[in-house]
């Protein structure tokens, strides 16, 4: 049971990072379905950096930087060129994994064995990790997960209680009104993209620096899209997104656990669990649409 819950936290972390990134993006009116691609590039950047420098922490930083880099392409095309966000997100989903796989092949040669990089080790917080049951699960994780523990309450307070956060949300709800109140909508959207890219990049880098020590094509395995549904399922609030991500992370942990204890069930059916769980969660609870009002719409500054 303890192992299962610990594994849940581990599986939740990448999803939750990407989902928070998407939350920041959608609050500024940018639907980014390119999360999967950004995570993929983040995973590669993280892996390469931690392979070369031997420091997983630098890998995480590189993942964030890589995520920002990819997402700036998205930002330029959707914000400045007003390209359709959904279509462009899809373009990113095709572009980023291709470039990640290319860089990997160039660096390690065409036919190479699986390369391994160091993994980030868990840090147990003295004192707190001694609490029975809860301690070893929550206070015995990697630095990245602790960062998440800080990030969630901070985002929650930022969006609901601070002036900047309200301005930020105004951009996603009604950009024209926001602009007339002196908020620089374009700048705000770029900031949102940078935050989104960084968080999704970290989510991707987590996979290759904290979870498995190698990079393979398809390492992200649709987690970007699961994160996307976590935002919808979580009703566009930080805490809701966290709950949704925990559910999807739990499904993922559960199927890994089942694969060990039930070896005679075909593993393919167990591996379907996270995806089917996401579908069911959306089908039963995802009907009400209350995302930011001008989500997904391009903002033409000069247009009336």
């Amino acid at each position: 049971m303890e192992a299962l819950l610990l594994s849940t936290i581990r599986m939740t972390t990448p999803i939750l990072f990407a989902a928070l990134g998407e939350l920041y993006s959608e609050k500024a009116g940018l639907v980014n379905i390119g999360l999967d691609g950004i995570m993929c590039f983040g995973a590669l950047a993280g892996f390469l950096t931690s392979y070369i420098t031997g420091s997983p922490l630098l890998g995480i930083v590189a993942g964030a930087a890589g995520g920002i880099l990819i997402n700036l392409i998205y930002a330029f095309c959707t914000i400045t060129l007003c390209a359709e966000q959904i279509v462009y997100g899809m373009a990113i989903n095709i572009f980023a994994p291709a470039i990640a796989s290319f860089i990997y092949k160039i660096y390690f040669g065409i036919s190479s064995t699986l390369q391994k990089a160091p993994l980030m080790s868990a840090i147990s917080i003295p004192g707190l990790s001694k609490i029975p049951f809860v301690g070893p699960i929550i206070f015995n994780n990697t630095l990245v997960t602790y960062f998440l523990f800080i990030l969630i309450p901070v985002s929650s307070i930022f969006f609901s209680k601070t002036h900047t956060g309200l301005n930020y949300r105004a951009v996603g709800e009604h950009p024209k009104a926001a602009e007339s109140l002196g908020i620089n909508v374009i700048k705000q959207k770029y900031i949102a993209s940078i935050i989104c890219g960084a968080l999704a990049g970290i989510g991707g880098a987590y996979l290759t620096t904290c979870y498995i020590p190698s990079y393979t094509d398809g390492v992200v395995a649709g987690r970007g899209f699961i994160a996307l549904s976590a935002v919808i399922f979580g009703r566009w609030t930080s805490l809701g997104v966290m709950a949704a991500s925990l559910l999807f992370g739990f499904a993922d942990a559960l199927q890994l656990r089942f694969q060990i204890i039930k070896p005679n069930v075909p593993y393919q059916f167990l591996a379907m669990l996270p995806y089917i769980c996401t579908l069911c969660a959306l089908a039963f609870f995802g009907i009400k649409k209350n995302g930011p009002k001008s989500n997904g719409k391009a903002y033409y500054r000069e247009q009336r």
Partner: protein
Amino acid sequence: MKQILIKIGVPILSVLCAFLISAILITVIGGNALQAYHYLMMGAFQNFTNFGETLVKVCPLIFTGLCAAFAYRCGVFNLGGEGQFLMGATAAIWCASLIGGTQGAAGTVAFSVPGIIVCLLAGLIAGGIWGAIPGILKITRGLNEMIVSIMLNYVASLFMSWVYTGPLRAGSVPQTAAVAAQIKLPRIFAGTRIHAGIIIALVVMAVLYYFLFYTSAGFKLRAIGFNQTASRFSGLHVKTYILIAFVVSGAIAGLGGSIELQGTQYRLMDGFGGYGFDGVAIALIGQLNPVGTVIVAYLFAVLRTGATMMQVGTGIPTAIINIIQALVIIFAVAGTAAVNLPKIKQFLFQSIRKKEAL
């Protein structure tokens, strides 16, 4: 006229830009770009066998491309082409094994045309059903069709993997038995692997083109794609059309899956598929036009065919063609958006008008 010019110009320009940037990339990693492109073209057009190979590779791309294009014409994004393709192939091999049409099956019967058609239909129906799921969830529960169809891709891929490792596994390697010779699509040119699938692909393209642009149902479908609200108020059954778009789109991909199985691969195994996202890219670059889609699909097929020879000849990894493809879509989508920007639109039309005045 101007619209058409822009519609054709943007993709062509994007392709050129993509090749240019990839050339720079090749030079940076220490290769000779001209030589690489030379080998790329040689690999695709050196002789009739290679040319035939491009026509073999284009088949699945046409189907997944048309699948994405058709759904998006109705304003819904079907990203599940991959899943529908795989389900189509799985249904086809399952059907073949049921009627004794796999190699080594006990009661192999001598049937050719009916057997082929039954298996193709099985793929078509399976794809249609798999495509209907996101459609139904969209119109009844209002779910985002993109997420649903992507999730179903993973489910389909795992299901296919179960089929070739479990019930239909033949031998020690996890793969199914090959389909019997009677079930294989006939080859239409001796000495190449070109099979009848390419003809089916072109027929599907023609039918879709006719349907979309020359029938009233096609017009209504496109109208819904342009503006759902307006279409609803003018009395169209938006939900029905969306569901139809999904089912037809899924059926196209499913048919593509069974054709790939019966025409090229003959068996399910690891690595079957991988055309879904390329299909989306192809549809977008082809401006959602069936003919444009087929042309872009052919370009992608040429790249895929030539890449192997380029890798052998110059040592540049085949992954470079993924970069070229990805850059084309990046530029094509950005370019399409850019020419629609108010400022640029004005500039374009003014310059065209000036030319006409002269």
